């Protein structure tokens, strides 16, 4: 268990570090720009889920990361907005992190509620069709 987590820590750290190395070492500026937003953590997490528990769970991790990525845009937008408004660097960073977590969880919960609503609507329609055939 601890060994597995240590391996994940090393892999995740190495992936993020490698994307920084590419930015610094690359002779082409364009490559640096591309790798500045490389989704290293997501790729490592999906890879590890694939190795340890197969395609289904790897796809679920990738699906969950969509909400986290939406939160990521909100995090960057929050940092940008509060830096412009307050010029307070630590406060903007803290608010960015807080907004990332809140918005990711909110989007994920909203999506789940929408899924449940759609599912119950389908059930009602199916029941109505069944009664009609009867």
């Amino acid at each position, binding site marked *: 268990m601890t060994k597995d987590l240590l391996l994940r820590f090393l892999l995740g750290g190495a992936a993020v570090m490698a994307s920084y190395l590419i930015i610094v070492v690359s002779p082409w500026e*364009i490559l640096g720009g591309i790798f500045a937003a490389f989704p290293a953590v997501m790729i490592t997490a999906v890879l590890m889920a694939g190795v340890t528990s197969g395609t289904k769970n790897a796809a679920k991790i990738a*699906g969950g990361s969509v909400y986290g990525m939406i939160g990521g845009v909100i995090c960057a937008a929050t940092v940008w907005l509060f830096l412009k408004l307050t010029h307070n660097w630590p406060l903007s960073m803290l608010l960015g992190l807080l907004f990332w977590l809140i918005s990711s969880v909110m989007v994920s919960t909203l999506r789940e509620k929408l899924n449940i609503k759609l599912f119950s609507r389908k059930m009602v329609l199916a029941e109505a069709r069944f009664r009609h055939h009867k």
Partner: protein
Amino acid sequence: MGGLSVSALLIRFILGGLAVVASTIVARKLGEKAGGIFAAFPAVFLAALLTAGLDLKGEALVSQSIILSKGAMVGMGINILVAIVAVLLLKKHGWKKGLIEALGCWLAVSIVVVAITVN
């Protein structure tokens, strides 16, 4: 491109490692979907901000962080698209092939976006 900095490397290593470990622990306790949220922890963006915090002070730090935040918004927008495509590809072709294809998709979209924004 700036020079190589040990503190920048260390910050990225620690943030990246912690994010993957957090994603695993949350996935085990609350399910893969919740774990996925932590898989998208903006480690690269926050590491870039923290590194800027070590090198710069005052207004220079604020303006550099504003530039970083603008770039991160575009980068994360691409990553949302790639994560959606990854789900489809993983389900269709399995995790190995699907992940490689998703990486190819990320590279292609990033090249196009960077080429458009640079010129």
